[in-house]
């Protein structure tokens, strides 16, 4: 029996609050922290729509509408090299990283000597945990034009007359960035493929062997199709990042001689925002980047759902 005047839902709610007070107490700090460091800064997106002046509340600043957003495409030609560099490097990196991890996992699976394959996994996984500054330091030690180990050696051997400027010459920038990414992430990316291979039932291999399939045929008709679902999920997961570059990587490797082939959206936003202090413009470019990323993720997800039945949401 429900007493008059006490709403049943309300009663359930207050009972829930009392009964679960400890759970709410455990949840609350995280809710607040995420609110302050994630939801509050979202209101900063307003900066893109107003004439920002430090100290003046955003809502009373002069409204400028979409001026900053349109300006990105009409006031300068920057968007041409930015979009070109960002897409070229990120799409090539995604393809290169996936392909190398995929092939590496398959080849590693063919190594019969367990200790050796464990050793290779251990060594290749290590660069994932190494910071970009270390990689920057290693790169200059290896590839600096005059004092780098590789250039010195090639000159000593008489292969080249003068050092190749990998770090500064814009011709090599894209290839160099993609290669560094592969070096750092191949071991990490292959972990998921390796576990996917071990999840393929050994019955398939046994049946194939009885049917007379050789090693290449087993790789081609069992291992590779068995890895495809994993590859597709990884591709969807990573497609949302196609406009997001590895900030530290590009911050460190972009310099005065190679910037035309190296400058990507994230670095441009940083430059305009925190170095040239044009907050509205930098925020506007950032918002566009975020929304286009989300759209790409949704589109790839939908296409994949239709074509293969695999989707992440």
């Amino acid at each position, binding site marked *: 029996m429900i007493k008059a005047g006490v709403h049943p839902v309300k009663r359930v709610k207050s009972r829930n609050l009392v009964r679960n007070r400890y759970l709410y107490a455990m*949840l609350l700090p995280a*809710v607040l922290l995420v609110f302050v460091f994630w939801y509050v800064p979202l209101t900063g997106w307003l900066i893109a729509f107003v004439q920002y002046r430090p100290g003046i509340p955003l809502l009373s600043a002069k409204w400028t509408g979409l001026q900053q957003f349109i300006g990105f495409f009409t006031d300068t030609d920057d968007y041409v090299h930015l979009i070109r560099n960002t897409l070229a490097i990120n799409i090539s990196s995604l393809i290169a990283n996936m392909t190398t991890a995929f092939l590496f996992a398959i080849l590693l699976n063919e190594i019969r000597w367990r200790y050796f394959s464990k050793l290779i996994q251990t060594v290749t996984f290590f660069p994932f945990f190494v910071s970009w500054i270390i990689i920057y330091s290693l790169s200059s030690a290896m590839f600096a034009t005059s004092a780098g180990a590789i250039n010195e050696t090639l000159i000593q051997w008489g292969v080249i007359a003068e050092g190749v400027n990998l770090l500064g010459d814009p011709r090599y920038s894209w290839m160099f960035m993609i290669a560094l990414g592969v070096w750092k992430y191949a071991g990490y990316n292959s972990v998921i493929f390796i576990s996917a291979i071990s999840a393929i039932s050994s019955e398939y291999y046994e049946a194939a062997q009885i049917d007379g399939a050789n090693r290449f045929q087993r790789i081609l008709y069992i291992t590779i199709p068995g890895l495809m679902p994993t590859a597709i999920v990884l591709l969807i997961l990573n497609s949302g990042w196609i406009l997001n570059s590895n900030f530290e990587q590009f911050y460190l490797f972009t310099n005065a001689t190679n910037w035309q082939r190296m400058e990507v959206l994230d670095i441009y936003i940083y430059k305009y925002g925190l170095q040239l202090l044009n907050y509205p413009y930098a925020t506007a470019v950032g918002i566009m980047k975020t929304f286009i990323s989300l759209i790409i993720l949704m589109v790839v997800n939908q296409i994949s759902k239709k074509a293969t039945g695999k989707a992440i949401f």
Partner: protein
Amino acid sequence: MRERSISGSLFDAGNLIFMLAILTLMLFPFVYIVSYSLSNPSMLKGGLVLFPAGFTLDSYKKALGDSAVLTGAGISIARSIIGPAVMLFFTSMAAYALTRNDLGGVRFFRKYFVFTLYFTSGIIPMYLLMGYLQLKGTFLIYILPSAVSVFNMVLIKTYMEGLPKEMEEAAVVDGANDMRVFFQVIFPVCKPVFAAVVLFECVNQWNAFIDTQIYNTMSPHLYSLQYVLYNTLNQFNSLEQLKEQGQKQLTAITPQTFKMAITVITILPIAFVYPFLQRYFIKGLLVGSIKG
């Protein structure tokens, strides 16, 4: 059961050579800088260095006597210990609450957290927020923004959902409240997933560089070791200092050996925790990929 064919053996041989090439490619840069940093520069002839030429620890003595390096190491160690501890505390508590389907509004809270994985506000709003919160130029800026990791929360929650429900129920029957259930029953059995996320956060904290660059460039006492390395690689004032002192002490150090010594010092802690990282992290990664 394996068949022996010529093409199979050729493939094995080719594969072996390929893997050895990969090993060389991955290892050589590290071997090179370690050997170079231990070499006496006057004995280096340039080119590939596999073994130290004229063993000396001078560049390490110099680096470890450098006050910037020591301060940087202190900051990096502090943030690599405090950061993961704080993250684990807030993140694991929330993760446990989210596993409880009987909690009113739990579906909303799950969405509230997961939403944050898909996009961020960007660098400028964050920069301004840190200004308003007066966190710029403080140590807390290394800790607070990463105090809750939603990615780790999902990993921990997934792990907790795999635990047998009977443990919790037994504790509740014994009259323990939810907080005690979490800290005394759930927390101890989550060690594998906690090890994974803590180690990963440790590495993130140790490797972090851009937060110092964005928020703390005006506070040299808060420079992390990574940032000190960055400055050493890019600025030449330390080079000049070295030259002056080098003439005084006649030590065998060049800017190159000095840079490499700091690089090695920055990698060493990662190399030490790497065996644990590899063991726990692969597990954590796979938990995540199943969910993903």
